[in-house]
């Protein structure tokens, strides 16, 4: 058993394999604290996870990690929090998130931000950050589950903008409405497979998010210029 702290929550994980403990090493917290969330995974759930995508088999421990995070994400809405499949960076203490279908170029775009802004940019999480409302702000939090690039920082920052990435011949950035965002991202709000999430509560959180965080379409050429354009749009070039 391990206990971690992520997004301000103490999470107890009744893990079977060391993989999860190793993955979470930066987030471990005192085992005597009272957990907000407790998750346990059965062997059967691990088998099922492996059967879903045998070609992505990276070991039983890895599969356990996937199911653990699915269960954590299903438990989050109660704490005004959710997982949204996205890459999120912090610049000058504020967070910008990029969401898109897998393969559209979230990681590549994030890499371009690093290229343009250097040390000024911190990747909070490259793949599956937790977003949580705290005092009327929506904060993006680092978590151990962060995709194959392994980009994550144990930190948080208020979310300033949500960008829907799309590939295109020309760069463009413009506001889009909430429905367009949700229609595109609905299946990114909780990890697929569980189906145990409190949907009405999750919808309330998404409504709250679009009320305070502007949503943009960010059309990107496949080079650094799209990141430059967005960085200019958000006035992040100067201190």
């Amino acid at each position, binding site marked *: 058993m391990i206990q971690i702290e992520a997004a301000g929550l103490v999470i107890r994980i009744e893990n079977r394999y060391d993989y999860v403990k190793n993955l979470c090493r930066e987030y471990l917290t005192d085992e005597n604290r009272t957990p907000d969330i407790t998750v346990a995974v059965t062997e059967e759930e691990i088998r099922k996870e492996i059967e879903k995508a045998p070609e992505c088999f990276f070991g039983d421990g890895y599969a356990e990690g996937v199911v653990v995070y699915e269960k954590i994400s299903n438990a989050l809405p109660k704490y005004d929090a959710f997982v949204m499949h996205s890459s999120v960076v912090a610049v000058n203490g504020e967070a910008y998130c990029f969401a898109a279908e897998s393969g559209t170029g979230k990681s590549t775009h994030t890499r371009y931000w690093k290229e343009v802004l250097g040390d000024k940019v911190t990747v909070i999480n490259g793949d599956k950050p937790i977003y949580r409302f705290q005092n009327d702000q929506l904060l993006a939090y680092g978590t151990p589950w962060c995709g194959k690039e392994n980009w994550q920082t144990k930190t948080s920052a208020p979310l300033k903008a949500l960008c829907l990435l799309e590939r295109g011949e020309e760069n463009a950035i413009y506001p889009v*409405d909430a*429905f367009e965002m*949700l*229609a595109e991202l609905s299946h990114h709000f909780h990890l697929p497979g569980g*189906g145990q999430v409190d949907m*009405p509560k999750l919808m*309330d959180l*998404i*409504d709250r998010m679009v009320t305070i965080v502007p949503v943009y379409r960010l059309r990107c050429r496949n080079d650094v210029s799209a990141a430059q354009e967005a960085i200019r749009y958000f006035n992040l070039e100067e201190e």
Partner: protein
Amino acid sequence: MKIKEGYIIKKLGAGYVVVTVGQASKDFNGMIRLNTPGAFLWQCIQDGMDTREKLTEAMLKRYDDLNEATAAEDLNEFLDSIKVALED
């Protein structure tokens, strides 16, 4: 007409959206966008108005500048958009 179990309406920004919960999410995994008049009609059906006549009447009462022909047209369009959420 009646709305199927598991189809719920939620506010989203300036509009509304119908999503599914529980068992219904296995049949329909998408979402339906509704504007304010659409949300009004959804509520009417939930309140038990189960015929086109009752719904048209409610629309005419609610929207002063609406005539019967347009109301019928708008209602058809609305019912078509929420078809998946209606019991046969």
